[in-house]
């Protein structure tokens, strides 16, 4: 039971932290808040996650959470990878511009 209280405290703290983040746009805030609130509900009422799991053909709620969190993590990693690639492209353009300008000055 102790872990349950710890988890609830961390999740509630996370929601406050999220609300205070100024740079995050409203849609992202809403999506993250939904995910955290769902986790909060499942932390308080673990049986509900088992009910949901049964409905989608998974035997235990904790297994369902495990699968879903894997998918979410992969998705997030992929988004960051794309972001990184885009940044790399911008960086390439910057280095190229510098090289070309220098070549114009000292041909």
């Amino acid at each position, binding site marked *: 039971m102790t872990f349950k209280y710890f988890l609830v405290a961390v999740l509630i703290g996370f929601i406050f932290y999220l609300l205070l983040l100024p740079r995050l746009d409203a849609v992202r805030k809403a999506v993250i808040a939904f995910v955290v609130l769902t986790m909060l509900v499942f932390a308080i009422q673990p049986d509900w996650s088992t009910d949901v799991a049964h409905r989608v053909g998974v035997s235990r709620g904790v297994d369902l959470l495990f699968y879903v969190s894997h998918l979410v993590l992969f998705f997030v990693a992929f988004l960051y*990878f*794309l972001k990184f*690639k*885009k940044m*790399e*492209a911008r960086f*390439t353009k910057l*280095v*190229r511009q*510098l*090289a*070309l300008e*220098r*070549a*114009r000055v000292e*041909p």
Partner: protein
Amino acid sequence: MHANDVDEMLRETFVVVPAYNESRVIGDVVRGLAASFPHVVVVNDGSSDDTAAVLKGLPVTVVTHHINLGQGAALQTGITHALERGATYIVTFDADGQHRVEDAVSAVRLLREGSCDVVCGSRFLGTGSNVPRVRKMVLKTAVALANLTTGTRMTDAHNGLRALSRRAASCLDLWQSGMAHASEIISQLRAHKMVIREVPVQIHYTEYSLAKGQSSLNSINILLDLVIGRFLK
């Protein structure tokens, strides 16, 4: 073609050589090119060896990337520079000494005849194929991937020797920094309906150029880069 015509053609041509840590061979490659082509542009792609020092004093323009970006990025920089300086024809030429200058001259000559916009060298056309067996397998995989992703039927998509008309070179906006640029070049040229011709060229394989070339595993990287490239468009 008259001697004057050939001279004019060579004067209007810019040869772009992307170079990354090629100090051992770049001097000879550039001297060989400069003997025929008055305009040679070497893009020093953030080399950490003596490439810059070797290039000093040679009759070439050096464009320097302060950090290493990859061959695709270096080619785009060189092509943009050549276009800015008014090139009519642009040749891309590997820095490791595997291409022959006479093949580059023939490619530009073919381009000047006007029947196509791009001439690509192929080591698998004609009788001169001297490609080592493992290399052949890697390259054939790369060709199959390139044909699959670009919808073309090329025999050697990863050959660094190409000649492009100004019109064709202006179409390029290479996004792939690494080795996937070879397929990207073909797919962008096709998107702009450029006429591409392949001509047989000889590749001079040395221990050096083989060590510098792509490893078999790199085919997987190229495929990944191409797939990811689609998401970024």
